[in-house]
């Protein structure tokens, strides 16, 4: 469950998001859409407590980000699967190790980690690239590693920032299928931020539109 209540965040040197209100229930598939600079990434950052609201509250999976101690932030984040707009792969680890990382953070068993990591690699079609480093992968392949890393731990909530920006039509569709499956069959909450209205039409999901930091309705 994610709820933003009268949330406002204004950047010191720049705009921000203002007076945002919405609630997203468990298992929902939500498209967060808006043009470049609208505030999509900013909203996601508020949800994973990379930014704290200046006014109002952000509640994610039972954590209210502005009221919790900084020690609890890792606990919130362990309930989340994040796909970053700029991928944020670790350059000195191969695809396998990048994807396994959230499982090590959770402290899973070695055998468990192996199984899940290969399953995630399979989900994004990169089994044969497991031992390649990010710089040895194409842009789209790197993006898919990022997606695999977000879904590998089967998180309560998936926050995906522009997850198909570097993917061709075929891969985009497969990724959308994967995320839809996780929402519908697995009960994960999935939020996909994108500027691409065309992908919204391809799946049935709720639409949250933002422009210049304010929600449209």
């Amino acid at each position: 469950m994610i709820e933003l209540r009268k949330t406002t965040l204004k950047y010191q040197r720049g705009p921000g998001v203002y007076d945002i209100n919405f609630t997203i229930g468990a298992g929902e598939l939500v498209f967060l859409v808006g043009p470049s600079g609208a505030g999509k990434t900013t909203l996601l950052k508020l949800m994973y407590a990379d930014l704290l609201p200046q006014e109002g509250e952000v509640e994610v999976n039972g954590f209210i980000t502005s009221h919790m101690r900084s020690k609890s932030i890792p606990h919130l984040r362990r309930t989340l699967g994040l796909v970053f707009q700029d991928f944020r792969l670790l350059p000195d680890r191969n695809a396998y190790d990048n994807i396994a990382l959230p499982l090590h953070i959770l402290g899973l068993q070695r055998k468990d980690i192996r199984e899940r990591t290969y399953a995630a690699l399979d989900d994004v079609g990169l089994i044969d690239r497991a031992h390649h480093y990010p710089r040895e992968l194409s842009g789209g392949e790197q993006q898919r590693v990022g997606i695999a890393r977000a879904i590998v731990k089967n998180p309560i909530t998936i926050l995906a920032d522009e997850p198909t920006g570097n993917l061709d039509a075929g891969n985009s569709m497969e990724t959308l299928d994967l995320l839809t499956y996780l929402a519908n069959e697995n009960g994960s909450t999935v939020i996909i931020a994108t500027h691409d209205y065309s992908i919204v039409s391809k799946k049935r999901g709720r639409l949250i539109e933002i422009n210049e930091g304010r929600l449209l309705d």
Partner: protein
Amino acid sequence: MIGKLAFLISEGLRSLWRARLPALGSILTITLTLTLFGGAYLIFGNFDRATRRLQSQYRIDVFFKPILTNGEAFQKYQLLTAVEGISSTEFISKERAASIFKREFGEDVVTVLGTNPLPAGAIVLVARGHRTARRINRIADDIATIDGVTDVAYRGELVRILERYIRIAVYGGLILGIVALLGAIFLVSNTIKLSIYAKRDTIDTLHLLGATRSFVRLPFLIEGVLQGIIGSLLAVGAILGMLDVMNYILEHFVLYRLIRPAFLALFLGTMGLLLGLIGSSRGVGRFINS
């Protein structure tokens, strides 16, 4: 939990191996610091030994009354052992005094005068714990009160100069040691700080993926400790090598050998470990704030 720890240790090892070049820098910094430190330890250990060679400077010359015969003087001489602060004594008969005179003044006093006017005497060495100008003064006074002793001579001036140099060495060594230690910690933490600085994106990402502070810190601490241990091993090797080279040179030129101080490896190993730990935790502390 054990699986996680194993992962973090292997992360530390991997990180060390992956960043061999910067790590090598860090390791050699530790090696260098410890080599300087161990070298100082070596020199101090040997300096102490060298000063013992100069112990003849802590000598008091005692003169008995000229009218006393050798035998009578020797009885008085035995009273010297009761004086506190004396490590050894040597009796100088009238005949030895004459030969010393000859050595010092180039003239045989017996030949010149037909008789030996010189008094018997004694050479007294001051014990280690009493080698300060003030104590020596006291000891000389004590000896002077012994019946049959006419005069007591000692090189007070020389003792005072020696004391001066030893004080300088001790205080200078203390200051240099503290500077070097602070410098070493600073250098190690700076090197590790720069390594961490180079990995700041990785650290940010780990935090975003839900890693705790200690999950992020531990591999760096392990890396630092490993660097410290490797660095100190290299330092031990470097010092033993240096010792050999210096001894080769010293033997060649001055027939003098430096000895290996005890506990060198233990001393340097502990210091390296502590350096790595303190340095890396200082270095880590600055950069990792979730």
